[in-house]
């Protein structure tokens, strides 16, 4: 065993010196290799961070949201439905919500207006005439605490709201376009009927019962549709997943080009390199030794490119906010949240990256390396 380790040490030694003796040939490959790793790693790190953030933020979202449907479209929920549901077993919290959208023509953006429920731990409802806004609105409208925001109500009257506070930037991903106001203001602004709420929220004591409760709701209130938090999470996951996959498929072309390049580099031995291998074979190295030495060369290159590419991607995503990718992965909107993704690395990610970069490189070089290594030992004599 120790002999095997010593032999690998000698072979690595030779590989390192061989690489160092021909920097020009290998630098080109290293740059391309690092770039490929950088691209793929950036996509993965970014998507993964977004996914994690979404999951973390949604962890506090309601388990069941009940919406009323009329002719397949969302309609307002009568308050009396709350009493009808109250008799269901397993429901630990039950309340109506008031929220809606508002299109602001001044900046051509959509705001989400909401009345925070009484049970909400984070925010109490603002006082009448006051609002709490998300950072997206603040940025686009240039608002700070104490400023006034004027919006045109459903009846055409201008409503002037004073900005009481801003929502924390840590929740930007979901709160960037959010505006919180009091229930009375909400109803007056939207000319909302008094006996209606937008939807109903339920919390269920036992998470395994959520589906059962949802089924009971559908039976009790046939014109409603329950939306489960776990479904939202699954949808987010799936969307992030296929978006990521789509980018990878697009990058497959780049990976293929890299593979061909690697093959070419590995096959194109200069006369000098051929001579060197011939000398090694003639002085006592067998084919197996030369093969192993060449694979160590490849491994050293791969490890260098991978580490460098990954570190650069990490810096790009978590310190540079993934400047290159935002448009594709975030979707279209006027109000871009300015998120600082939380660094998150996991084994599956790294393994997948290796599978897309180091694995194809290694496969591409197997045959060229073999061809070089099986050179006849007496080749240098002829």
């Amino acid at each position, binding site marked *: 065993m120790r002999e095997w380790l010593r032999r690998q040490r000698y072979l690595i030694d030779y590989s390192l010196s061989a690489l160092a003796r021909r920097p020009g040939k290998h630098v080109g490959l290293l740059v391309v290799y690092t770039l490929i790793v950088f691209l793929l790693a950036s996509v993965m790190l970014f998507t993964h961070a977004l996914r994690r953030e979404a999951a973390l933020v949604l962890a506090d979202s309601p388990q069941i949201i009940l919406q009323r449907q009329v002719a397949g479209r969302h309609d307002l929920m009568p308050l009396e439905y709350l009493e009808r549901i109250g008799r269901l077993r397993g429901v630990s919290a039950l309340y109506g919500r008031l929220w809606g959208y508002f299109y602001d023509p001044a900046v051509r953006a959509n705001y989400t207006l909401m009345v925070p429920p009484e049970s909400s731990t984070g925010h109490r409802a603002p006082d009448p005439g006051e609002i709490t806004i998300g950072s997206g609105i603040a940025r686009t409208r240039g608002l700070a605490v104490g400023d006034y925001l004027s919006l045109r109500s459903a009846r055409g009257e201008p409503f002037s709201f004073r900005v009481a506070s801003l929502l924390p930037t840590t929740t930007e991903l979901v709160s960037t376009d959010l505006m919180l106001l009091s229930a009375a203001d909400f109803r007056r602004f939207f000319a909302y009927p008094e006996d209606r709420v937008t939807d109903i929220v339920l919390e269920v004591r036992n998470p395994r019962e959520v589906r059962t409760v949802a089924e009971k709701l559908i039976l009790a209130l046939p014109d409603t549709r329950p939306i489960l938090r776990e479904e939202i999470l*699954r949808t987010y996951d799936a969307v992030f997943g296929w978006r990521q*996959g789509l980018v990878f498929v697009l990058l497959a072309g780049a990976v293929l080009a890299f593979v061909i390049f690697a093959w070419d580099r590995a096959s194109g031995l200069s006369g000098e390199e051929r001579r060197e291998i011939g000398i090694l074979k003639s002085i006592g190295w067998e084919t197996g030794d030369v093969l192993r030495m060449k694979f160590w060369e490849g491994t050293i290159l791969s490890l260098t490119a991978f580490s460098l590419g990954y570190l650069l991607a990490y810096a790009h995503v978590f310190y540079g906010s993934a400047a290159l990718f935002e448009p594709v992965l975030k979707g279209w909107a006027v109000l871009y949240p300015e998120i600082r993704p939380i660094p998150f690395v996991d*084994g*599956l990610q790294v*393994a997948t990256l290796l599978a*897309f970069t180091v694995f194809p490189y*290694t496969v591409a070089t197997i045959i060229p390396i073999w061809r070089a290594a099986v050179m006849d030992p007496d080749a240098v004599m002829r």
Partner: protein
Amino acid sequence: MLISPPVLALNGISLTVTLLLALAAGFALQVVRHWDIESGSERQLELERRTYLISTLVTWCFGAAVVSLLLFVYNAEQMTTQFVGAMCATGVLNAHPLGWPTLFLKILVFFAGAAWLMLNRLDNQAPDYPLVRVKYWILLGLLPLVALETGAQLGYFLGLDPDVITSCCGALFSAEGAGVAATVSALDPGWSLVALYGSGLLVLGVGLVHGWRSRSGASGTGFALAGALAFAAALAAIVSCVALYIYAHPHHHCPFCILKGGHGFIGYWLYIPLFTAAALSLGVGLCSPWGRIPSLRAATRADGRRFAAVSLGLFAGFYAVATYAILTSNLTMQGVWW
């Protein structure tokens, strides 16, 4: 179809492995037909060169297959959020009829590859390459297995439908259900531990005999059989007893949840030594009958001893970790099981 990068990677790896192995098999066929060790002709020299390529290709394919197995399980763990009712890899595998077959085929490929590589290593130690035809015929037989695994995996991922409600380990591995998994879970913990340690002692005994005392190749075959028995007993014990201690829950039998971080990744410490030890014992069993060939006698003995020693060491490691898990668990079943 779920085109997430890990799934793409898995399918890509399996497809590449199949293609590389097909290439290797093509060369192997040439070798089998024209091999003549006595001749010094150019064709023979070319064939000898080809054997290096075949070895290299198969070695890389095997490495990729091992990574692919780990990646598959890990990925199944990560995909649980996308399936209703799934809380661990079991649920994800249940979501499509090809899920479990893919896993079993991958494990089979792992064992087959390990055994072949050990046979190849043995053959390379004799100047007359006595096993050339044998090993390359076996290699040709491995190709359909690998192709089948690729196909099953592709079918599985193509057919996966996130709208399918799947059942998780609680349903599959519960003592009350029907099927193999349920039967194993329902095994009495006491008996399963007896089987576990008993098979362990058997493997140890046969292994020592083979490595240090025996003269014939039969002890090698015995070692392989003992290893297989120990492997089966170990898996059964994990599902029916050890897992319960790890989770500190008398009804949680799932073999995958122990791979999660919440349990200190102890699953890897159990499965990796176990699988490696079983693969080595299988390889020793495959190689030992060839000791009757004079040019291989010394090599068979040396390899047999070395790999038996490693295998026994790993088996011992597995038993140590399993015992540790049981002893340090918060679960006490005094009065219930003991």
